[in-house]
């Protein structure tokens, strides 16, 4: 994912659209425990590529809000930070999912 300034109105609007969806995607992916890099790969494989400069600050923000919990653990002889949804995060994800589905239905009707 490019760090540059969006070059066209479409690119700029596309980024704006994706930014809101990323939070739900990240939270949904963290229903099972992941560390940063595998989370990025998982999202990229599902068509939601996210660069490290966006993902890690987002993870920290969600953790500060109490939606995620994290712990440092050794894996493959390297220290990695693993994230997963907190109980509050699970509840919020459920609400966000309902909101997303309602929004998707409304937008589908409009489009």
């Amino acid at each position, binding site marked *: 994912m490019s*760090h540059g300034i969006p070059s066209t109105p479409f690119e700029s609007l596309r980024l704006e659209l994706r930014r809101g969806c990323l939070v739900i995607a990240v939270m949904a992916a963290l229903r099972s425990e992941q560390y940063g890099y595998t989370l990025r790969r998982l999202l990229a494989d599902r068509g939601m590529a996210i*660069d490290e*400069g966006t993902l*890690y600050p987002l993870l920290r923000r969600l953790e500060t809000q109490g939606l995620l919990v994290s712990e440092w653990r050794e894996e493959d002889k390297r220290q990695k930070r693993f994230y997963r949804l907190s109980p509050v995060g699970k509840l919020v994800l459920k609400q966000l999912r309902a909101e997303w589905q309602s929004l998707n239905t409304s937008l589908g009707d409009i489009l």
Partner: protein
Amino acid sequence: MDLLERYLQAVKFWLPTPQKQDIAAELSEDIRAQIEDKEAALGRPVTEAEVVAILRQIGRPVLVANRYLPQRYLIGPLWFPIYVFVLKIVAACYLVPWVLVRVGLALFDPASRAGHASAGWLGALGSAWSGFGLAAVLALGSVTVVFAALEAQGKSGFLEHWDPAKLPAVRDPRRIPRSGSTIELAVNIVFVSWWLTAMRSPIVLDRPDVQIAFAPVWSTFFLGFLMLSVTNVAAAAVNLLRPYWTRPRAAVRLATNFIGSGLFIGLCRSSIVASLTVSGVARAQTFLIAATINRVMSQAWPIVMVVGIVVFAVDIHRFVRATAAGRPLAGGVPHGGLPNSAAR
């Protein structure tokens, strides 16, 4: 991996101390994983150039670090439009007149050039320019400090509590406020009365203890200002009855203000005080006082000219706007298309 360590060090430089190690460790792990993936794909260790490409793709260290920091503004998006508006007012009402007065003095006032005898008006302009820097920094800096304080204070209530019913009416740039015309009419009538009774003679003050006599050229200024004031009375009366700028009325206002500025400048430069007599004061002393009054007036004319230029610019703008008939105003009211009943 020297390059990676150098990169992480550069990122850490911009991070707050409590988070430095934690963020760097996580970022380091991610980059190492990317490198390993690349090596697995290539089937060989990565070269330094390939590590450079990965780091370049991640971004400049200060930008990467910035994404971990909370967004902070000196003046945030809520206050920013008001801040810019106030800056424009300060520039238009303080800095522009400041520049015009200084340039006027540098070009036309011998006294202000005296300190720059060798460089002349160029030196005076240079001095004005350096003074401008300080004036601009002080004016704009003060406004910025006030708005930064408002931003730091957080919610002031000003932006949250407002009443749509108190918004100003839709502004018609061609509308002449009746209150302004009424005041203008009253002031000009009083001025004409006073001018005719008190200023007709060149001996403008003739009391037993004080006599002030103007130079013979006074009769020209007397007539000039009288005619201007009478014209202003007529224009204000018409504006009161039909409160919309039209091309002829805007032209009359432009002409009267232009001639008025010219007359005022002429008056300043005419050494108008011919004699001054005060009982009990020596003749030499009163002569000195009269000369001082004439000199101060003479030195003031560049300022009068600057004011005249500003007024002239406003009048030109009004004249151009008045000629733009037919174009719709905000709210869909056509220029020049207002019925008389609406105008009244």
